[in-house]
């Protein structure tokens, strides 16, 4: 066990203490307590303590259990694809944008039947997020926010028409993984239309991370708390990188 092997920390190094809560379709009692205990044990909790057992419906009981987990993670085995972008200041971005000699066109939308605009607005709109202005406010960018409830087909068409360097997709609703389906479908559509490689694809939302986005065919993913600057920096760097590789960009 290397020192990179982490166990849960309750109040002592390596004590493995975790808290688990759940509902079972059983009524409170000795049997139920035992059932909850075994359920916790099945997860690898040793000597689990059923500290709450309360009837939550005519058929269900809610439990809270504490126990010492036998599990751990070897963090030395974790290789996450960190986002490439360096942290640039707003000024640096504007400088680099000037050098580029043209505005970077970004087109964003919250797609499918998802009507949550706040996230994409936070990134794109002038108003911004946490006191930081959105991409609209940058001279380096030409930002188009199509709003919410935008179908993939429409988004693809508008983006193409605008000559987008980057498409920004927001997905907030995640019930039964509809965000994954929706995102992957856009990627597939662009592949089918033959221009996937010519555009940066960004995905964002409270349940998105870089790893997930990449697994759905996107170039990068942005999670909760993202600020416009990070996104601006990422797009700028990528566009410059790509510009260098393959000139001229079709438009």
């Amino acid at each position, binding site marked *: 066990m290397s020192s990179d092997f982490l166990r849960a920390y309750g109040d002592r190094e390596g004590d493995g203490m975790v808290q688990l*809560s759940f509902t079972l379709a059983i009524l409170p009692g000795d049997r139920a307590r035992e059932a909850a205990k075994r359920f916790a044990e099945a997860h690898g909790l040793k000597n689990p303590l059923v500290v709450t057992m309360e009837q*939550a*419906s005519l058929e269900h009981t*809610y439990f809270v259990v504490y126990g010492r987990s036998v599990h751990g993670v070897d963090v030395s085995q974790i290789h996450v694809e960190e986002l490439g972008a360096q942290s640039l200041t707003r000024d640096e971005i504007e400088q680099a944008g000037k050098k580029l000699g043209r505005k970077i066109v970004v087109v964003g939308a919250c797609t499918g039947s*998802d*009507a949550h*605009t*706040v996230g994409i607005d936070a990134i794109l709109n002038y108003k911004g997020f946490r006191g930081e202005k959105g991409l609209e406010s940058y001279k380096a960018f030409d930002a188009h926010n199509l709003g919410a409830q935008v179908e993939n087909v429409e988004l693809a068409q508008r983006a193409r028409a605008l000559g987008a360097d980057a498409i920004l997709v927001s997905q907030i609703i995640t019930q039964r993984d509809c965000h994954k389906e929706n995102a992957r479908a856009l990627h597939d559509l662009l592949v089918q239309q033959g221009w996937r490689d010519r555009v940066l694809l960004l995905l964002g939302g409270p349940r998105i991370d870089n790893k997930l986005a990449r697994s759905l065919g996107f170039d990068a993913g942005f999670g909760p708390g993202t600020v416009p600057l990070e996104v601006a920096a990422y797009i700028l760097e990528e566009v410059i990188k790509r510009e260098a590789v393959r000139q001229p960009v079709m438009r």
Partner: protein
Amino acid sequence: MAKVPVDVEKVARCRALAADIARDVQSTIDAHTTIGVERTVARAYGVEGADAEGTPLANALVDKIHGAGKTGLGVGYFLGRALHAGASSVQEAAEQIAFGGDSVEVGANDDATSYRQALAKHTDAALVRIDRARTEREGLRSSLTVGAEPLKYVIVATGNIYDDATQAKAAAYAGSDIVAVIRATAQSLLDYVPEGPTTEGFGGTFATQENFKIIRSALDEISKKLGRYVQQTNYSSGLCMSEIAWMAAVERLDMLLNDAMYGILFRDINMERTFIDQYFSRRIIARSGIVINTGEDNYLTTADAVERAHTVLASQFINEAFADRAGLVPEQMGLGHAYEIDPWIEDSFLFEVAQAQLIRQIFDRHPIKWMPPTKFKTGDIFHSHVHDAMFNLAGVLTNQSIELLGMFSEAIHTPLLMDRYLSLKSARYIFGAARHLGDEFEWKPDGRVANRAKAIVDEALELLTDVQRDSIWTSIAAGVFADVKRTRTGGKGHAGVVRRDALYMNPILDVLEGRAKEAAR
């Protein structure tokens, strides 16, 4: 109750301005109908069922008429004509028109008066159906106890109506007074109401007449078991606003989310369409005794709750004016607002209380509906639970009527059974532990709370003055509410708006508006 100072004269001016704003819109409403309104009329007359693809007969019928450009006559005109021509029932009439090749042209010797007569007993029946449901609801309610205010309102949203029923009963068991079945994500943009029970929905469950029945019967069952009447609510909103209002009326729902402007702002539904639909939906609601819940809470999810607090109040005056025009009494107007200030702002609790108390006092006969924190919720469920606790405290302190309970998993998923149970337990504790807190003091007339309340009234008055001057159409286009801009002819569903013909026939509306005599019963 701990009161804040309210300038009654300013409030009166706000009301007068709002009445003016609504009056301006009413002329448009009175001159138009929509395919949604007409489908509602068809359903009220008894048109039911759907074809194999799931297209409701009401849609097939109205689409046929609309395709022929004759919506301006009203579906009643054509149903009356078919009945007059010998159709044995409204259903048969509808089928003939939709599929049977009946003409939807207006003939030279059409006789509107006879058509209206042919409809008369059906008009009566339609109203009787609503009234019976109302009587039945009131009977059941009065045979059982009802919860104390703030009423504890919780949502269920599994996507599957049978799971919803399980959870609705669980919620009732755990102490809720009102259960809402949240709608599936996409439903408000559908221009039809799905048929039958449904088991697949994202972020919620479809609102269908059958689903309403399933939940009502589950709640009736548990209400009787508990001896406490549990209310049901759903959404009369979106492109089928009035159809759902009618379904709710006949299926004995108790409340409906119903707002004069929500669809415009949050669903990008056309403005005219929304105003016309909301009017007819509210006429039905007024008759049925249902309590509406308006959606001003939503404004604070897109606009800042400190800076734009007055837009909520201004909009409440407008919603009140529209509701009043549709015949609702104040006791049916559950005006909405929300606890959405950034919790990390110093004295945020004081600001929340100020607004809650202000609204409580201004709309003193109204069953105010209060929404919990949502926007600043994070995945930290423990902290989220505390945030909701402060909301609950503010609710009992300011005597809100309907308190939609926050869920600690708000930022994560629609509530699990356990989440809801804990939410109810927490509300029960706080409503009890601080039951009479509001009786124990008055707010200092020049304190932070009072000054905040005064400022909100001042700003609302200013805003209403502008809106009255510019008209609501222009004001919404300028983004005064929710920081969202919409145009009069933009948005979804505008094609379903039609100018009424001189011969426009809607006997049900005539009764609801009090222009036609009611049948004796």
